[in-house]
């Protein structure tokens, strides 16, 4: 398929929404630059499985089919957003548990996300950072920040930024 965005208006289809999430995770644009209004209403809640994304209505049939065929069929998550690394692995990052980063996250070069670290879509790190806590949607953590385990930053203000943040 070919997807074209002539302007940065709210996504009106699944292909448009996925393109915007890809642009963020490919680091082609930074959080807050894209209009993602209404993206939750556009994306479908899906089963993300070892055989790819599956519509929840199709899931029982697919599970049965896999059993009959003697195939492994693992459901990794049931969510509107897939994990980022199934689509994009940005350069120069370490990610201890790939399930903790959603597609649409912006992981800056030199960032390490440890096992308990979490990064939502439209959020991320500007450069090298150590992430052991949670970065919620809308939050951008500055370069050389260290977000310690058990700490979180959530985006009640969607324009919050933290520079050189140290929090342990």
């Amino acid at each position: 398929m070919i997807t074209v965005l002539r302007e940065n208006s709210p996504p009106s289809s699944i292909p448009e929404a996925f393109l915007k999430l890809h642009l963020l995770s490919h680091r082609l644009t930074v959080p807050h630059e894209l209009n993602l209004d209404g993206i939750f209403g556009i994306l479908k809640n899906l089963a993300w499985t070892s055989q790819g994304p599956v519509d929840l209505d199709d899931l029982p049939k697919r599970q049965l089919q896999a059993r009959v065929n003697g195939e492994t069929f693992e459901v990794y998550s049931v969510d509107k957003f897939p994990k980022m690394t199934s689509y994009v692995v940005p350069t120069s990052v370490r990610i201890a548990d790939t399930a903790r980063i959603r597609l649409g996250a912006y992981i800056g070069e030199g960032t390490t996300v440890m096992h308990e670290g979490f990064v939502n879509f439209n959020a991320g790190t500007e450069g090298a950072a150590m992430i052991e806590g949670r970065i919620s949607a809308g939050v951008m953590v500055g370069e050389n920040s260290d977000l310690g385990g058990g700490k979180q930053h959530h985006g009640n203000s969607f324009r919050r930024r933290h520079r050189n943040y140290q929090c342990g």
Partner: protein
Amino acid sequence: MSVTDLHSLALGIASKNSSGEIIEVYYPKPLLNPSTTCAEQMLAQCQDISDNGFIETSPDAMRSLASALAEAMKLSRAKLRRRLPEVQRLR
């Protein structure tokens, strides 16, 4: 704004449900603010998209578009290389 001024574009592979609806798309190499050359090649394939949108194409059409794009980008790079001595003289 010119018709070839695009915010972004991408070739992708979609997954569908049993009703034939698109549920997810993978774009291996999305482009932000694509060059005029790229935009022209792409828009030639999807004239039906007047605003933001998408079209579904066959794998064959995708392959020919991908090679047309590669060719167009090669030409565009060659044109730039030819202009390089000119630019260097001006500096």
